[in-house]
């Protein structure tokens, strides 16, 4: 069982390292956000499973499940809030078509009308 826990811990750490490499290597803010928002969620999921398998008490397992659910929800919501404010205020050079522009002008027209 300890071997399984160790494998989960190493795989989780590897995913977090992958996210860090992505954050350093990618060359615009949205790409970096893409690396930083997804990979650590999976990494932390693996780490929590590994920790739960290593500790093996009911209390630790419950807390670990709460951490996982909380992280999966808050990570996505946080990335969404940050992405929205970057799109509206920082405006990095986008490559390819900007499919959000039309919806965004409608939203700001609605905001102005209100």
């Amino acid at each position: 069982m300890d071997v399984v826990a160790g494998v989960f811990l190493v795989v989780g750490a590897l995913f977090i390292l992958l996210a860090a490499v992505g954050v350093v290597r990618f060359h615009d803010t949205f790409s970096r956000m893409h690396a930083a928002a997804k990979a650590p969620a999976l990494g932390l999921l693996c780490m929590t499973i590994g920790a739960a398998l290593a500790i093996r008490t009911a209390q630790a397992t419950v807390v670990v499940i709460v951490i996982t659910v909380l992280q999966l929800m808050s990570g996505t919501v946080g990335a969404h809030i940050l992405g929205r404010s970057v799109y509206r205020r920082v405006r990095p050079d986008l490559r390819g078509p900007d499919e959000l522009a039309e919806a965004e002008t409608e939203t700001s027209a609605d905001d102005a009308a209100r």
Partner: protein
Amino acid sequence: MITIATILLSLAAALFMVRLFLGPTVPDRVIALDGLLMTILAAVLLSAASDDSAVSIDTVLVVALLGFIGTGVLARYIEQRGG
């Protein structure tokens, strides 16, 4: 196993620090800070797993909540003041 995971997490923290110092915009630093916080969460979980104690697990919960609030506040700041 614990040693390998510790080395990997240290490398990840160093890389996030590189991005934190390089920037170039505020959101890039927010992303790096968020990643660094994730690395800290993983490190606390790792230390809890290595000495088989559930005492420090609760810390992870608090730090995860603080990280979410911090990201939200900084995103609001960027939206109102610009990057």
